[in-house]
Structures are given as structure tokens and as C-alpha cells.
């Protein structure tokens, strides 16, 4: 097999070799100045095979049909290179004539070893590669295949990038990539880091869901049903029902919201989050009757929305002051800071009712002197609480009396009400005893 193959190569090589050789010899002979009849043969064979005819060194006309080479340098340089050229050609001829001389391995060894060194890269494989060139549109990476592979800019990262250097891909860095397309017209494979990052992000989301962590995500756009948010580089969805009722969905766009995971399903690429669930936690911090500083978010005909600690509560028009108000705008405008007292809160529907009425030292102060209200707010709140405590005590006394009388007393569960009002935290030590008026 070896001999046959060698002979086959030899015959092909010799046929091309001779003609090639012939044309070169002819060219050099012609360069000497004499146009010989064999030049026609050389020209014809070269045209047959398409071999470029060596331009004569003298720059003279070879034969009709071949242009004169106008090259000053070719004319001017002394021809010491002829022997080098001759040696080169002689060596080339030798290599063709004796294909296995001096070669350490045989044809068969090569054929056998071929299967051992075959590389196979399939789409979806993860490969390690070394970056060796980064240009503005991507990076070239050496992965040990036939040709270097390409990582386009869009595939480098989930977020938008200006150049691959931002992800840390400079020459010499070794990273993991996954193959997304192979063998485009240059024989190059297209790689991607995005896919690996996607998998990573999904894993993180799963983890966060299990740990029930609240994260912040930026809302990108609103559509018919909810809001699309950006979380860990992935696109998640928050339905309208899950957005805290205080905010309009359209206002929410381009804002960061606290979110919790509802559903994390990678196979169906479903990522559903909830704003309300995250905010529900915050409410527990507020106790009824406590005073907080708030900023007016918006003013409506029926009252004002005041933002306290991230959630907004409603300050109803009737709760602003003892005096009657015709319009809210006269007293409050968006951006005003004021202290409000929490009347009640509804955790499930995330509603908080606020009041400044109770904080006025004298009725009507809110209209005349809002600053005074601000200062006295804490005092007033305390007084309010005392009055509430008194009322509670009175009610309980009444209840006991009713029970003693054996009637159908109010069978209310006062314990829970007391807790809801925050009474168990109250210190009743410095309150004068109730006196009969």
C-alpha cells in the first residue's frame, strides 16, 4: 500500500514538478538573453497548468503574450541569488523524488495515529480556551481545534457591553465557553459565554427562592398584565396583582422595587416575582399609633398619599385637620415633609391609614401653623395613646361588670385587640388614675 501510494504521489508530483521545473529553467535561460525554442514549450505548459511563469531577471520580454516586467530593482540587483535559487529547487526536487528519506515515521504510523488525534467539538460543548486577540466586535479564542474560534460581542455577557474587555477578556486569559454554532464559512466556531452565565443566574435565583431573600430589581417595561423586571440579568415578570397597591403600574417603570421570588422554573423560562410579598414584611415594623416622618407623594381630591419608609399610606382629607377642608392642595403639596400618625394598617391589601388630625395641639392647627403640628407631633401621639389606653381600660371594666352581672357580656377577645393596638408595649406607669368627672 505504501509503495502504491508513494508511486501515485510521485507520478502526480513529477508531472507537475517537471513542468514547473521546466518553466523555471526556461525562464532563467531566457534571462540570459537568448530566446530559445523551448521557451514556447515552457510557456505553453505553464499556461496549461496555470503556473506563473518566472519573470526573467533581466526584465526582458520572454515571448509574445507575456508583459515586460518593469522593475528597476530587478534589473539593478546583482545576481548572487542564483545559486541559492538553484539550491532551493534542487532540494524541492529531492523532496519529491525521495519522499520518505530522513522522515522518522512511516506512512502507516501516520494513518494509525490519525484517529487518535481527531478533535470533535459539538454544539453545546463547554470548552476551555485562551484569548489571543480582542477586537471591537468580539474576541478570537484558541480552543485547540483547526482554527481559532470567535466570541461575538453580543454573546459575551447578559448585559450590554461596549467591548469584551469589560468582562475581563484580554489577551492571555483562559476562560470557559460554550459552543453555539460551528463551522461557519471560515471554518471558525462561534462561542458564547452568555449561555453559561444564564445557567448560573438561574441557579442563583433558585437559591434565593429557597432562602426566601428579598432582592431589588429594576422595572424595565409594563405590558398588559404586569411589569417586566430585570433580576440577576434575567427577565422576570411581576403581575399587576402582585405590585403593591399604592403605586400605579405605569409609575413603577424605571424604578427599583423590592421583590421576592414566586416561581422559578428554568425549563419553561418562567420567572415570576412579587412586590407585595416583599413589602408585606416592612409593615410589621410599624405599630399603630406610632408617629413617622413622611413625604407627600401625590395629592388627590380625597386626600394625599404620603410615603413612609418605602410604602405609601393614605392621609384622608377628613383626617388632616379638625377643621373642614375643601381641597387638599391648600395645605399639602407633593414633596412636603410632615409627621403622620398611623391609624390602622391592612397587611393583606397593603393599606395604611394615616392621620394628622390627632396630632394637632389645638384643632385647626394644621391649616394655620403646620410647623407647630410638626413639633408637637410626638407629644400629641403620646396623648392619643393615653386616651386610647383609658378607653380600653374603661371598656374592660365595663365588660367585667357585665360579666359579674351575669349577662351576655361582650365576648370579645380583648387580648388580640390590645396587641394590635400596641398596648402591650405601652408603659402605663405615669398616667394618673381615671377619675370620675
Amino acid at each position, binding site marked *: 500500500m505504501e509503495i502504491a501510494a508513494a508511486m501515485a*504521489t510521485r507520478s502526480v508530483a513529477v508531472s507537475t514538478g517537471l513542468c514547473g521545473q521546466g518553466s523555471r529553467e526556461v525562464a532563467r535561460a531566457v534571462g540570459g538573453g537568448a530566446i530559445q525554442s523551448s521557451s514556447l514549450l515552457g510557456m505553453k505548459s505553464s499556461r496549461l497548468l496555470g503556473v506563473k511563469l518566472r519573470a526573467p531577471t533581466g526584465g526582458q520580454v520572454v515571448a509574445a503574450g507575456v508583459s515586460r516586467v518593469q522593475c528597476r*530593482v*530587478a534589473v539593478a540587483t546583482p545576481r548572487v541569488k542564483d545559486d541559492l535559487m538553484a539550491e532551493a529547487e534542487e532540494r*524541492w526536487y529531492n523532496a519529491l523524488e525521495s519522499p520518505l*528519506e530522513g522522515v522518522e515515521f512511516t506512512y502507516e504510523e501516520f494513518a494509525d*495515529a490519525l484517529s487518535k488525534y481527531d478533535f470533535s467539538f459539538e454544539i453545546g460543548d463547554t470548552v476551555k480556551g485562551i484569548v489571543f486577540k480582542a477586537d471591537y466586535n468580539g474576541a478570537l479564542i484558541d480552543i485547540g481545534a*483547526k482554527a481559532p474560534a470567535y466570541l461575538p460581542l453580543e454573546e459575551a455577557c447578559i448585559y450590554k457591553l461596549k467591548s469584551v474587555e469589560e468582562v475581563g477578556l484580554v489577551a492571555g486569559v483562559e476562560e470557559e465557553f460554550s459552543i453555539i454554532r460551528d463551522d461557519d464559512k471560515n471554518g471558525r466556531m462561534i462561542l458564547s459565554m452568555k449561555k453559561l452565565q444564564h445557567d448560573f443566574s438561574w441557579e442563583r435565583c433558585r437559591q434565593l427562592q429557597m432562602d426566601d431573600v428579598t432582592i431589588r430589581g429594576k422595572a424595565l417595561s409594563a405590558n398588559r398584565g404586569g411589569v417586566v423586571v430585570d433580576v440577576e440579568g434575567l427577565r422576570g415578570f411581576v403581575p399587576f396583582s402582585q405590585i403593591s397597591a399604592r403605586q400605579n403600574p405605569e409609575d413603577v417603570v424605571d424604578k427599583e422595587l423590592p421583590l421576592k421570588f414566586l416561581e422559578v422554573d428554568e425549563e419553561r423560562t418562567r420567572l415570576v416575582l412579587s412586590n407585595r410579598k416583599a413589602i408585606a414584611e416592612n409593615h410589621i415594623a410599624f405599630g399603630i399609633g406610632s408617629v413617622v416622618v413622611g413625604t407627600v407623594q401625590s395629592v388627590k381630591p380625597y386626600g394625599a398619599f404620603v410615603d413612609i419608609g418605602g410604602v405609601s399610606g393614605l392621609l384622608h382629607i377628613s383626617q388632616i385637620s379638625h377643621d373642614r377642608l375643601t381641597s387638599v392642595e391648600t395645605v399639602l403639596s407633593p414633596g412636603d415633609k410632615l409627621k403622620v400618625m398611623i391609624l390602622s394598617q391592612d397587611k393583606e391589601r397593603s393599606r395604611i391609614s394615616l392621620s394628622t388630625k390627632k396630632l394637632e395641639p389645638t384643632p385647626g392647627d394644621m391649616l394655620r401653623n403646620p410647623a407647630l403640628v410638626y413639633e408637637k407631633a410626638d407629644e400629641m401621639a403620646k396623648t392619643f395613646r393615653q386616651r386610647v389606653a383609658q378607653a380600653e381600660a374603661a371598656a374592660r371594666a365595663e365588660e367585667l361588670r357585665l360579666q359579674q352581672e351575669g349577662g351576655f357580656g361582650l365576648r370579645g377577645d380583648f387580648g388580640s385587640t390590645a396587641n394590635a393596638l400596641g398596648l402591650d408595649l405601652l408603659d402605663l406607669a405615669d398616667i394618673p388614675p381615671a377619675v370620675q368627672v
Partner: protein
Amino acid sequence: MKQKSWDIHLEEMMEAGVHFGHQARKWNPKMTSYIFTERKGIHILNLTQTARFLSEACDLLANAASGGKQFLIVGTKYQAADLVASAATRARCHYVNKKWLGGMLTNWSTIETRLQRFRDLEDKENMGLLNQLPKKEAANLKRQLAQLRKNLGGIKYMTSLPDIVIIIDQQKEFTAIQECITLGIPTICLVDTDCNPDLTDIPIPANDDARASIRWILNKLTSAIREGRYNSMEIK
């Protein structure tokens, strides 16, 4: 000179992926004799012939080097650029690894003018004269210097035409090959399955795309050059 063993091992070559050719439909039929077979739509080169041609090329280079000849390595592909620069500096040859300017060899007189300018500007910069000029002129000259360094940095010390030219990718460096043919300079060229082996004097059928392959072949050639130079020094 007696043929010396250049340590061309099969395993090394296959590790480097020297035997892979380009896609089967993009071949040049003149490469039939150098192709072993086709696998998965890619041609495989016959490494026995590669080894043979490579050893002949190395001998030629060693001979020439001991005779004090000048060499030029041309490789402008992305993959090859820095490899060419490092190999050439190791072997003390000239190199072109950024764009091959048209007429670099055939229009040598003009290039010589540019090299002269390059030397002048460099001297000026070393002496610090550039900083004494007004800002705009200094900026202009520095930019010129940067451009010259980029394009002609490798042939800074070339005084006349090289004796042998080594070319990495024949398809890409077509201008270079044409110039060498015009001037009658012998060339050693890495031919892949889409190249024409008749254009060059000693073709070395090998993979010209993968960095490992280019690096391996350049190593062999430059070690041959160094060997030749060392021998010549010994003889002296």
C-alpha cells in the same frame, strides 16, 4: 551539507494540529498530492510529506545562514502576528507582521527612504529633541514615528533585499509572494489545502490557521537558522 536530523516527531505535529487542512469544498486541486484524505468535511494533509519538505527547508536555511544570508519572515494574520515577531527576534531575522506594504521589495528604494526617516525620528526622540518643538509638531512627529514603527518595525535593520523569504499564509500574503517571484527570491511557504504550491519554491503543507501549528513550524525553521549561524561562527 549532510542532512541532519531536525527532530520532527509525528506526535508533536499531530498535537499541534499541523495535519488539519481547510474545509473540503474550499480546496485548491493542485494540492492533491499533498492531501491524505478527507474527514468530516475537512482535508487532512500527509504529514510524511510535511516532514520531508520541512527537513529540506531547514537544511536550506541552515546552509544559507552559515553563509551569512538575510531572511525575512512574513505573517500578518491575527493568529500569527505576535508569533512571527517573537520567532524573528529570537532568530535575528527581519519580519513583517503588520500589513505588507505594496512594493516593499520591488520598490525597495522608496522603502529605504522611509527607513531612513524612521531612523532619524528615532534618533531625535532618543535625544529628546521632540519635546523642544511646539506641541502640535511634536504630536505629528510622534504619530509618524508610531506609524513607522508599526509598519516597518520588523525591517528596521534591513539594508538590502533579503535572500530567503518565509511566508506564513500564502492566500493572505499574495502580494508578498508575487514580489518575491518578480525579484527571483526563493521562498519557503506554509501551504494549506486552499493554496497553490507551485507559486513557492519549497512548500510546507501544514495548517496555517491554528496558532499551535504556526508556532511549531516557526520554531523548527528558526532553530535551523540559529543552527546555521552557530556553525558558521564555529567555523570562523
